[in-house]
């Protein structure tokens, strides 16, 4: 499935979940996501994250509603707990695979969603830069240690250097892009033309309709 279509599906369902006060629906969403994860071949680390990440916000809101809430607070406590899990498990369907699908996602944004190429390539630049950031901070620290100066985590000078190198990096990125002939607002050709399959649209419609049907019994 094209990642942009997947993204749209996930976003629409997540938006609807915000207004639905049903534990059952949330559990169905979690269950369907879990079923799909079985095919996505997650690593045990990713499974661990899926279980641990929602715990704090989930139980946080559960406790506050359970013990300090008013009105229909017991039901709402369970709704909130299951909703946090539903959001994260649903979102995970998109985000956990985005590393593999990043290029095609960005290409779809540029070619199909007609997002400005400047925006898309700035994003590409930032994403390429991310892995370098922690290495960069480490290098800055060691480089200044070699100059006899230890920069600690709490010292502003470390961040001053980091920000300075980020600013210089963004200038370099802009200059680098222009030196490659990148022109704001100009037409570009594309080596890989993105096509969204009819099938993908079909799935989008089927999933959304199926989800609406779930709502018919008025569980909320």
């Amino acid at each position, binding site marked *: 499935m094209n990642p942009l279509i997947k993204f749209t599906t996930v976003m629409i369902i997540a938006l609807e979940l915000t207004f639905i006060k049903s534990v059952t629906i949330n559990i169905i969403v979690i269950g369907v996501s879990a079923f799909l994860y079985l095919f996505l071949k997650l690593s045990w680390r990713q499974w661990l994250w899926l279980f641990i990440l929602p715990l704090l916000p989930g139980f946080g809101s559960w406790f506050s509603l359970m013990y300090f809430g008013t009105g229909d607070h017991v039901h709402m406590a369970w709704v909130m707990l299951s909703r946090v899990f539903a959001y994260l498990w649903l979102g995970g369907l998109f985000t956990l695979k985005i590393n593999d699908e990043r290029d095609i996602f960005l290409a779809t944004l540029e070619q199909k969603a007609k997002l400005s190429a400047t925006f898309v*390539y700035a994003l*590409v*630049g930032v994403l*390429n830069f991310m*892995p*370098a950031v922690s290495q960069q901070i*480490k*290098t*800055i620290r*060691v*480089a*200044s*240690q*070699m*100059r*006899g*100066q*230890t920069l600690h985590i709490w010292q502003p*000078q470390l961040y001053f*250097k980091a920000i300075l*190198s980020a600013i*210089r990096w963004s*200038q*370099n*990125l*802009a*200059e*680098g*892009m*222009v*030196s*490659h*002939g*990148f*022109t704001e607002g*100009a*037409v*570009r*050709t*594309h*080596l890989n*033309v993105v096509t969204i399959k009819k099938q993908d649209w079909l799935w989008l419609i089927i999933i959304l309709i199926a989800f609406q049907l779930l709502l018919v019994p008025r569980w909320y």
Partner: protein
Amino acid sequence: MFCAVTDLVVDHVNFAYRETPVLTDISLKLQPNSFNLLVGPSGSGKSTLLKLLSGLYPTFSDGTLTGKLTLDGYDIHDIVPYQRVAHIGYLFQNPTRQFVMKTPFEELRFSLENLQINPDEIEARILTALEKVGMTAFMHHDLLNLSGGEKQKVALAAVLAADSDYLLLDEPFANVDPVARLQLIDVVKAYQKKGKTIVITDHDWSGYTDAIDDIFVMTDGHLHNALVDERQQILEKVPSQPAIHADLPSEKKGIITLESVSLSSGDRTLLSSATLPFPKGKRILITGPNGVGKSTLLSALVKLHPYSGDITYQQQNIAKRKIAKHVKDVALVFQNAEQQFVAMTVEEELTQAQTLSQSPDLWSDDTINQVLSQLNMDALRDHIVYQLSGGQQKKLQVLLMLIIGTPTLLFDEPLAGLDNISQQNMLNVIAEFATRQHQTIIMISHQLHAVTDWFDYHLQFENQQLSYIGGVS
């Protein structure tokens, strides 16, 4: 729509940062379809001129331009980038600053898509260009993991693929090993024969004898056509593999020792099970082809790159030493000078180094002044370090690290991008103070002609092996 020859006019051009002139009254006439060499000392304004010709300046600088700088009658910096690059390609002195994408393939594709090349042609062009520079095997590797020389080759491939009429190359071979360098000069020459015009800056003049049409000399922001004897001097430089005079170490112990050390980068094995000492108080040269793992080795010695086996410093396993303590004894002079700066101006940097020096008595104000003038840097004290030229940054960085006085100093290509005189001055300064501070020097360099008699020992890094060579002359 396109004329056969585009007309580049550089007429009475001046360029200045606020009050400080960088280029003064420059006029330049390039013969169509010619190969031009632009020479001059570090900081004389060569890069600035090329950036102006490429249209990146004055837009990406805060300087002001006066005079006529046009392409077919249009101001160069007013032409939209994708049309401009079709006519004028420019290769940055520091390739990492030019890279936008993650892999060589994506980098070239990005450029060709911008130039609106027909998608059917793009892949073939990328492959041809990468093949010319010998980087096809690394097409889908992460650019971050490539060596300095390999990055320069990829950057060159990118400008070759763009197929511009004018090609401006700023020190394209500074980090490239001598063998590859000559091959790349041939590649550029072949490109020129397709009817293109080349301008290239280089401090190493060897290998150009048969290639050059015109030579331009930049001194202090003034440009002139090379005089007969200047031309003679440059054209006489024949490429040679200078013999490095070094002995085989007799020491069995070293200040640093490797025991069965292996290194890898990504899925490439760089060094397999090396055991050898780095003798104390000596100057040791490391040479080897691009991408063999020289920089990675130095990074491992300062605990910035993982390794297997044991590295010891004065019989202590460095794995057990805290990095803050370790780098007080073993410091790396990074390939990229900017990484080593901690302040804004040259003056502030010098004061910082002086306060934290391990031999404060040696580094009096007078000594520093004297060294600054020896390096031709005395007028730059109030300059911002990030606005110095590539060569000036390098000189400052080396000086700062010498002032700190770390017992063992690792240098990663400190001579790259420096003119011959600056190289000699730099080596003299390092030699004088390393001796006075009893320092051990380990240095990577491709600039062999400058260092034939400078080193005590010579380590060759090749085919995943490190070995001392020399001894017999």
